[in-house]
């Protein structure tokens, strides 16, 4: 009776002793930065940062300080701030990012070119003659982004994806899922955004959507900081130069530029009018 117990205990002790000695003999000095960084990460090993786990991400940051410390969606801005502190990165490096939908082709503003009855996902619709919308560049509106979002931060409202900027953690899943690449990840401090990515000529845009950028360059002239430029018939706001003054959003004749500090409440009636115009024309 006693022999088996003793033997198993002996094997266990030998193994434990071996491992203890081995851990001393084969000790590899760990980079101190890595250890402190790793301690701050949540340890969920979910891989949402794009690395193979928390260890891998901490390693990458310790090796290369240019690796962004805002990649952990689980920890959010708190963890990012702590990581930035450890790495000695400026507070600027820890800026919060959010997803930005570069389309505001709502049901009122744009039209569908077909009654699509196939598989109700954007990627399937995209393969079928390039999507259901009249505009080939815009949001298809079947909610692939909504389905991949684990934080309930993006919803298709009124036929176009819209981001809840408070809930968004900038994990980038929606940007990856969008077959039209309408969604991009941008810094949260840039609150004036171009909600269109159509590079078609102004007349073409006018035909398919009343909220699209027609490349009129009004915004370029209105900007006092040289932050807005129209290239390829599409306005682009330089995130470094933009001061969020919203002057461009005010002059934009089509509501392609939106000031997120003032959500476009007053726009609803205007949009309906614009829709009526287009249907009348």
């Amino acid at each position: 009776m006693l022999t088996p117990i003793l033997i198993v205990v002996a094997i266990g002790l030998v193994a434990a002793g071996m491992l203890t000695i081995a851990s001393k003999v084969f000790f590899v000095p760990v980079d101190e930065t890595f250890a402190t960084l790793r301690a701050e990460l949540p340890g969920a090993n979910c891989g949402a940062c794009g690395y193979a786990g928390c260890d891998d991400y901490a390693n990458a940051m310790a090796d290369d300080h240019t690796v962004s410390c805002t990649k952990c969606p689980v920890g959010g801005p708190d963890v990012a701030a702590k990581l930035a502190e450890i790495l000695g990165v400026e507070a600027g490096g820890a800026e919060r990012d959010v997803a930005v939908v570069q389309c505001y082709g709502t049901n009122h503003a744009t039209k569908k070119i077909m009654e699509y009855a196939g598989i109700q996902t954007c990627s399937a619709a995209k393969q079928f003659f390039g999507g259901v919308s009249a505009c080939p560049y815009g949001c298809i509106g079947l909610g692939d982004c909504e389905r991949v979002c684990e934080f309930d931060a993006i919803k298709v409202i009124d036929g176009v994806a819209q981001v809840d900027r408070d809930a968004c953690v900038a994990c980038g899943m929606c940007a990856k899922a969008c077959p039209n690449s309408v969604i991009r990840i941008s810094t949260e401090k840039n609150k004036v955004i171009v909600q269109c990515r159509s590079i078609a000529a102004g007349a073409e845009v006018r035909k398919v959507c009343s909220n699209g950028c027609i490349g009129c360059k009004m915004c370029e002239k209105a900007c006092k900081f040289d932050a807005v430029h129209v290239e390829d018939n599409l306005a682009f706001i330089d995130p470094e130069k933009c001061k969020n003054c919203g002057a461009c959003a005010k002059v934009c004749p089509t509501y392609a530029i939106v000031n997120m500090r003032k959500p476009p409440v007053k726009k609803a009636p205007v949009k309906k009018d614009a829709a009526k115009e287009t249907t009348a024309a």
Partner: protein
Amino acid sequence: MAEKITIVMSMVLVNNYVLAQFLGICPFLGVSKKLDSATGMGIAVIFVMVLATAATWPIMQVLKQFEIGYLQTVVFILIIAALVQLVEMMLKKFIPSLHKALGVYLPLITTNCAVLGVCISNIDAGYNYINSLFNAAGAGLGFLLAMVLFAGVRQKLETATGVPEAFKGVPITLITAAMLSMGFMGFSGLFQ
């Protein structure tokens, strides 16, 4: 020598641990999304299987000496777990590149039933020490083969468009695994 080749080939094709004996299904489904990580896992399994056999076979002789063969499972798990930890430490110290390549898979293998399976089946089949090692290597190769084949299929599945909505994701993966397993049934009876 012919005997050893027979052992290896039968473990790779006929008695493939994953596809014919259904051991080690967890990593087979879990780590087969990408070809390179599947290969890494497969190689790590070969490595651990041979080492575990090399360690457990002599221990079994000791257990038999004391007529406590029924403790086989407990003792083997203990030995495999300790061994994998030891190997991980040594790799980290001496071959960091290999340690990095195997990454998280090495500790995962501790709980891989195929490793325990190969150690026990070596004893049950009554192989001598050398044949046991060949059997373990064959089992590992079979695991690698199954992983690589399945990872290849899965990478194609990711982009396949003809999959019905209800079957997307895990269901179609399991069906594919079943088909692959049925394909390997064709090898049964190849060796006596």
